[in-house]
């Protein structure tokens, strides 16, 4: 992470966590009283989104720390719980929804490890399994080289058996996590894509090979793993290339270590298209055969999605029939056509994933329904 300008909320106390962060970045922090000063700095850039990737604001989370993934009623959701530890990302993927999600985009680090503990404690003592992740509004592990937060969370989750932490990333930043006593309560998850898409659309991310090498190291350190084929992009030859990604995954890790694999084709809010066209002139990712979905996001014409899913899932299932595969935001027709079943009851997909988490991570089985 290359931070050129570092701001710090004047209300944030200087403690070990913050000192570590500032010391790692080697950029003098500028205290600010009003977040608008940070917004002004970002907006003054010719490309505010790019500037935001080199600007970091250390602050406190003044909103919800833990919240349910919003999902939509039209498509099946995995009932994930979001731990809100920061916003935005230093990597630069053309399709990234975070470019359009924040106005203006702003990379924030929410300090306060004590705050995380206090908000997570009720979940650790709850009467059900929770899958909790930090990868919704940021990449979970861009922070690993500069912050104590990821290792703190791994240690925190290791001391309980009600919840599992999923750290989702496109980096290989796992060095400080390898030696931890994680107690298998953390799943290290990688977003994967075909090398062609990684190279053309995911600026500043690790290559597929690097990600899978990192996954292999994580597995050797006893971590449970997950992979997310998301966003899958449809182009000539994509089926073969995604099948090759499947091969490469299983060439690096044992299917038994994998808690789940998700798949989701590229979908986007319509106004993201203009951002992609302006910021990624050579990207043709928006020019697939998209229609407006029921959730008002653009998504590939359904038969095209189904074809890609069918071919990739059947290939994957031949290699690893026992691995739980699920779709992110898809409907009954897609599920039945590719996986032969549909989690139709409310929270059924969530329960399937909870069960897999319990089996792989040693969660308290009495919490499962």
């Amino acid at each position: 992470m290359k931070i050129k300008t570092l701001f710090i909320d004047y209300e944030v106390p200087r403690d070990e966590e913050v000192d570590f962060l500032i010391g790692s970045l080697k950029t003098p922090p500028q205290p600010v009283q009003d977040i608008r000063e940070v917004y002004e700095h970002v907006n003054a850039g010719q490309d505010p989104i790019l500037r935001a990737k080199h600007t970091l604001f250390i602050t406190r989370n003044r909103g919800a720390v833990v919240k349910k993934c919003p999902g939509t009623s039209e498509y099946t959701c995995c009932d994930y719980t979001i731990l809100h530890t920061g916003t935005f990302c230093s990597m630069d993927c053309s399709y990234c929804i975070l470019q359009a999600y924040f106005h203006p985009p702003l990379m924030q680090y929410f300090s306060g490890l004590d705050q995380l503990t206090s908000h997570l404690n009720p979940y650790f003592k709850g009467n059900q399994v929770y899958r909790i992740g930090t990868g919704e509004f940021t990449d979970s592990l861009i922070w690993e080289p500069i912050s104590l937060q990821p290792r703190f969370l791994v240690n925190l989750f290791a001391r309980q058996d009600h919840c599992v932490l999923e750290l989702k990333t496109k980096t290989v930043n796992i060095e400080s996590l390898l030696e931890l006593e994680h107690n298998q309560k953390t799943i290290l998850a990688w977003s994967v894509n075909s090398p062609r898409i990684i190279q053309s659309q995911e600026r500043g991310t690790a290559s597929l090979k690097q990600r899978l090498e990192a996954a292999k190291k994580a597995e050797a350190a006893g971590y449970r793993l997950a992979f997310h084929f998301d966003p899958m992009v449809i182009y000539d030859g994509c089926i073969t290339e995604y099948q090759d990604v499947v091969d490469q995954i299983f060439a690096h890790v044992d299917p038994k270590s994998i808690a789940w694999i998700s798949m989701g084709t590229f979908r986007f809010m319509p106004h993201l298209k203009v951002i992609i066209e302006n910021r990624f002139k050579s990207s043709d990712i928006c020019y697939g055969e998209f229609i407006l979905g029921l959730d008002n996001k653009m998504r590939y014409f359904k038969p095209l999605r189904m074809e890609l899913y069918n071919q990739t899932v059947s290939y994957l299932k031949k290699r690893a029939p026992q691995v739980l595969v699920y779709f992110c935001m898809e409907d009954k027709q897609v599920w039945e056509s590719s996986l032969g079943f549909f989690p139709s009851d409310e929270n059924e997909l969530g329960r399937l994933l909870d069960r897999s988490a319990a089996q792989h991570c040693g969660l308290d089985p009495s919490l499962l329904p």
Partner: protein
Amino acid sequence: MHKSYETVPVGSIDPAYQRYRLGQPSFDVENLKDAINRSGLIHPVVVKPVPEGKYGLVVGFRRYDAVKKLGHSHIDAIILGPDEEWDEKKFDLECLKFAITERSCQRPLDVFELLCAIERLKDHLDVQEIVAISPAVFNQVLNPSIVRQYIRMAGLSENLRVLMSTGRLSVKPALMLSDIPTEQADVFGAVFSKISLSSSNQKDVIQLSLEISSRDKKPVKQIFSNDPFLQILKDDHLDPRAKGKKIKEMIAELRFPHLTQARNTFTKTCRSLGLSGRIQLTPPKNFEGLDYSLSFQFQSLSEFESCLKKLDQLSGDEQFRRLFP
């Protein structure tokens, strides 16, 4: 501004000086020539001194052309001169305002003229200043967003401006064309000059063509210079409206081949099953949702019963069953 009335040699007016011409050059001055022959030049042209001892026209381009074609040696002219404290730039602005005012007081400016006027005024004035002078100079109140739109369109080629002034290209699609390279924009100009489409359909054709061009990594020109597009554009038996409809459908098909094919197959099957008349089967929008809908109309109990009978037959029909994936 100083004004003096003189008769000047026609040869002293520099025909290449077009700074204040707002409309397109008009080559048909025959009627005007007759009128001048009969009654003389009623309104003198307006000129300003330009380098090399010549005059440049500010107002009266057609009158000058007519007098020149009549072979007259001299022409009545009002010669404009700057106030003492004005520099060349200020004088240019005042001449520009003079030319626009003269035209807009005769009739509202057309799109071509507005484009020329605002394009030149923006060298001197910002948007708010153009808005402020608009009642006096344009004989209408221009709002800031209109002025901004015209400034954005300032780079449009002559061909596209002509299309706009003849109503073959609307403002919104023209704005889209002003954001792309002139060479590409002119391809659309050439297509729109041969077909008739509404503003929103023009926008669709531009948008979808640009997306096809980016997707297939080939210039827009290549899309329209190949069959079947070329065939349609050259077809003398089709009127511009029919050509426009076909071109739009073909561009949509090229952009969304699978969706178009699915729609066509569905429509064809429904038609062959008799589901496109009083009984209608509608698929989910874009085939995305799960809900199909069926509606039927009847005027009597016997028609109602006949619809039910038809529906009953359908449920066992193989072709009908294949409609549902």
